């Protein structure tokens, strides 16, 4: 058998001089390591363009099994394309629902307009009819609650969840649900009600310690929000009976909280790190337009500044810190945006159908409506443009080790339409991939490759 190196490997040298390896077509199952003393043998083998392998050498066999070495005639691009279509054509109906587009917060970087109010009863029923019709051919349902602030419309969420559970039970369909909420109304009683309605994963933002958070995420009237959110989070933490809950604490990093990021990380560790239901997401704060960002734009930071800071404060060396997405970053197609899913839509509170949950003002993102009878009345040509890959992959992307994770679908509105510059917006993840690998190697067993 003739082998060659995969184009989609990543090799990270540890401080101890060992090598950590990963192949992004295979994902985390490819994780392995080569000890310092075995590196010369590895280099000698893999320096060749084509490696003749007749069996016998367990190391080469293992590298082949892990996708680090592939058959010399293998078309890796075809494999990645197949992975992409498998991913976007999955059998989940994935809906991001905005039960209201109003919000009780006025975050400094928010892109939303807060114009549309709560979904009416008739609209809720139309949405449920749509779900019931779709679930016949798409047997799994994922409902993501978004807004505005979704908990301003708790009744709507409860109604839709109750009925969706019944619809899915009748069809023996799987149902998952999650919520992006500011956490202000997520007291334990509301959490309990939603938990029993299968809404079990949450993303809640704490933009730093009290002072920084309150500056960045005030109430509409300017009031403080930090204490109440934290109280809610601690109450959930203290209720261990919600075993299947999952809470991601997100921090949108800006100049406001940048200097005290290390203190925030320490604080997070003290409060949440012992509870595996919690993890932390460090986010770059983007400029997605809207009125709020005016005047705050100067506070935004570049991804490389943030990445450098995170490294400096040692988050990648801290296994006590449960970093969200650390493992996910290595899975094939993990960076494909939800807006590229064939059966993935964002539903406005007036039943406008979008794909992306950010660029609501762009005509390319306004596909149509769900009608009173629960029919999807959308521009299918436009809809297909969000997920079909018609353009060829540029050479720089073809050679990028991370192509199996994005396939240039990390931001379809950027990549498939001529609105924004078609630049890579996951450069920062790519730049930090070695750090993530190092972080994971402290927690997972990376099998050793030995050439005998």
């Amino acid at each position, binding site marked *: 058998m003739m082998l060659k190196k995969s184009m989609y490997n990543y090799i990270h040298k540890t401080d101890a001089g060992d090598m950590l390896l990963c192949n992004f077509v295979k994902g985390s199952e490819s994780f392995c390591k080569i000890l310092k003393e075995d590196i010369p043998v590895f280099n000698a083998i893999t320096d060749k363009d084509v490696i003749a392998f007749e069996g016998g050498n367990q190391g080469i066999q293992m590298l082949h099994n892990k996708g680090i070495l592939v058959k010399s005639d293998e078309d890796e691009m075809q494999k990645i394309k197949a992975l992409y279509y498998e991913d976007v054509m999955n059998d989940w109906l994935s809906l991001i629902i905005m039960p209201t587009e109003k919000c009780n917060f006025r975050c400094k970087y928010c892109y939303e307009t807060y114009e549309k109010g709560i979904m009416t009863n008739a609209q809720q029923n139309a949405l449920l*009819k749509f779900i*019931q*019709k779709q679930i016949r051919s798409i047997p799994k349902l994922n409902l993501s609650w978004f807004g505005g602030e979704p908990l301003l419309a708790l009744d709507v969420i409860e109604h839709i969840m109750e009925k969706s559970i019944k619809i899915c039970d009748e069809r023996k369909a799987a149902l998952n649900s999650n919520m992006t909420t500011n956490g202000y109304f997520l007291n334990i009683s509301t959490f309990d009600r939603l938990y029993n309605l299968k809404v079990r994963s949450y993303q809640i933002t704490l933009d730093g310690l009290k002072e920084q958070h309150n500056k960045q995420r005030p109430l509409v009237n300017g009031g403080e929000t930090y204490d109440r959110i934290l109280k809610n989070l601690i109450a959930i933490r203290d209720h261990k009976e919600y075993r299947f809950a999952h809470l991601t604490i997100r921090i949108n990093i800006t100049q406001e909280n940048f200097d005290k990021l290390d203190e925030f990380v320490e604080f997070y560790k003290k409060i949440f790190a012992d509870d595996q239901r919690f993890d932390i997401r460090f986010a770059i704060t983007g400029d997605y337009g809207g009125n709020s960002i005016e005047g705050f734009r100067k506070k935004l930071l570049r991804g490389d500044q943030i990445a450098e800071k995170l490294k400096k404060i040692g988050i990648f060396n801290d296994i006590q810190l449960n970093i969200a997405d650390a493992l996910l970053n290595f899975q094939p197609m993990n960076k494909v945006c939800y807006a590229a899913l064939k059966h993935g839509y964002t539903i406005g509170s007036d039943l406008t159908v979008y794909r992306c949950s950010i660029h609501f003002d762009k005509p390319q993102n306004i596909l149509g409506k769900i009608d009173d009878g629960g029919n999807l009345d959308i521009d299918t040509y436009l809809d297909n443009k969000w997920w079909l890959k018609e353009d060829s992959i540029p050479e720089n992307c073809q050679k990028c080790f991370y192509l199996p994770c994005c396939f240039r679908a990390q931001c379809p509105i950027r990549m498939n339409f001529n609105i924004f510059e078609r630049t890579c917006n996951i450069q920062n993840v790519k730049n930090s991939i070695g750090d993530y690998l190092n972080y994971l190697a402290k927690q997972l067993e990376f099998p050793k490759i030995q050439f005998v």
Partner: protein
Amino acid sequence: MDYLSIVVNVIEEMGLIILDSKEDDFNIQDYIIDSMQFIDFIVRIENKIDRQLSDDFLDYELLRSSKSFALKISDYMSTILDNVQST
């Protein structure tokens, strides 16, 4: 016989959740969405009323109104009963 209740029961027996008010007129096409379901629906109605429906029931457009559909069954059954009595 309450044919509207029969229609509602049949839809629910098919594993569909009725999201409209069952007493009000609703569009059965919001629930019965393809030919397979339509045939199943008609056969289930026939089993409930213990009669075979005539071919003019095999028109999907009839499902636009639950009340009209129930009324059509009622009329059909009356006709059958009248015919039975007259013979």
